[in-house]
């Protein structure tokens, strides 16, 4: 059955309107010349200019990007190893505990994850800042990265790996020349997911950060607490635009790869 009745079309329209209207209003108001949200004062890019003068916000954005980069890379490496362990290593001691620990951060309330990691850093007497947040983000995005890579590993032909090994390749060479190229799209997707998770996180970063390491969500959060402002609208619009470009580029890349593969 691939016929949409009027009821189902209505369901689509209502559902997508609900998902997109709030975001669209935010984008529209970022171009409002008036400071008042209720009044449309004409089209203006004034708030984008103001944003470029907001040094604390720019510093926070740069910090968040670096943080996302390092923590996503760590999470992807660890998540890929975890996926290989779960998909290729059959039984090993503590496997149940291991898969539980990989998946638990996915459903753990953020306040609990943040609190528990902070208590660890305090107990270990580590100076809190960039690296503690990086470790925290890598730990909670590891599970997401693992799931993405695992689904790819489950879906490919193992005889290719076995053939390489029969021809005398060491496991390391096999991984590097056969497995990794085959799971590469999933590894890239896992990295992007981990990067956005890190860029998005307010709660865990608030717990685990120290003086001098204020992330972009933390800055936005304190600005939002003070009230709605066109400058925040502009900042949000830039972030939405960046995400849209990355997601569309990624899906085009994947599509091209699928076409080349088929």
């Amino acid at each position, binding site marked *: *059955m691939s016929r*949409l009745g009027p009821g189902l079309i209505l369901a689509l329209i209502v*559902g997508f309107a609900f998902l997109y209207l709030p975001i669209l209003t*935010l984008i529209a108001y970022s171009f409002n010349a008036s400071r008042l949200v*209720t009044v449309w004062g004409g089209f203006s890019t004034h708030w984008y200019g103001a944003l470029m003068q907001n040094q604390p916000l720019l510093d926070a954005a740069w910090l968040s990007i670096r943080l996302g980069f390092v923590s996503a890379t760590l999470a992807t490496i660890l998540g890929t*190893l975890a996926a290989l362990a779960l998909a290729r290593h059959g039984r090993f001691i503590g496997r149940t505990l291991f898969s539980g620990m990989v998946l638990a951060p996915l459903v753990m309330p953020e306040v609990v994850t943040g609190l528990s*990691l902070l208590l660890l850093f*305090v107990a270990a007497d580590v100076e809190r800042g960039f690296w503690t947040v990086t470790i925290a983000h890598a730990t909670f995005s590891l599970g997401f990265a693992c799931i993405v890579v695992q689904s790819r590993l489950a879906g490919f032909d193992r005889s290719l790996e076995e053939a390489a090994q029969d021809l005398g390749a060491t496991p390391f060479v096999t991984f590097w020349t056969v497995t990794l190229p085959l799971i590469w799209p999933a590894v890239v997707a896992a990295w992007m997911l981990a990067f956005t998770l890190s*860029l998005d996180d307010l709660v865990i970063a608030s717990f685990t950060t120290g003086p001098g390491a204020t992330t972009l969500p933390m800055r936005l959060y304190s600005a939002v607490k003070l009230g709605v402002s066109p400058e925040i609208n502009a900042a949000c619009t830039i972030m939405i635009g960046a995400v849209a470009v990355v997601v569309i580029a990624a899906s085009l890349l994947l599509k091209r790869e699928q076409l080349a593969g088929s």
Partner: protein
Amino acid sequence: MSAASSPRKAGLRRLVVAVPYLWLALFFLVPFVIVLRMAFSQAATALPPYAPHWEGLAQLGDFLSQLDIANFSLLGDDALYWQSYLYSLRIAALTTIFALAIGYPLAYAMASAPARWRGLLLVFVILPFWTSFLIRVYAWIGILRPEGLLDTTLAFLGFEGEPLRLLNTETAVLLGMVYSYLPFMVLPLFATLEKLDRGLLEAAADLGATPVTAFLTVTLPLSLPGILAGSALVFIPAVGEFVIPDLLGGPDTVMIGKVLWNEFFSNRDWPLASAVAVVLLVVLVLPLVLLQRARLSREMAA
């Protein structure tokens, strides 16, 4: 397999397991034990602000005899705590119901759409999820606040009367929650509904079932795993949510995530915050078990 016989290969294999294992043990398991231990400690005006009752494994017996359950009995005695637990469960349950009410028709329509549209529709459901969580909540402040977009639009359309004043109410929290968690409901529902054999519906219709009867007796029972998985994926994070009740809620929408945050950041009572966290996890055990069941039954079906 011959790969395991060479010691060097075996070492490499072990490393693949050991590296993520050790990482998770150090940064997930150990912190968890520390929280448990902290929950049984006393607050102190020191830095860090707590006095542990337990200095090592050797003192385990000692520790058990003097476990400080004061934090937990406070959680039971002070109405603020258990009421906010109940309130969180209530909000999470309402969020799940509303997300299901909006998400099911949406997922059903997506699954019924022509196959060449489905991928695109799926991308459009996921896309808002990639934009910042904070931004999506913030967008609702602009809509719901006094003289915000909603009030202005209603006035423009000619609705006379009092402004709605929705911001800082329970309605606002619910709206924000349903909005933020909707994709978690739609994705598993879509996955089950898409795989549903349409021939079954035709068979039901041939046998004289009305579309409503066919839906109630065929589609709905078959999509139950998707409903369970989606509900758990919405319910579990919703219980511990902090940002949405904090930004959209008011003084009377105190959810447990916010209580934990305040105990930690405002009152600096780390042991009490840890006790709140421990009880929160206990509360979440049942829905987690349900989620695991749903996942298992889906794997069995696949």
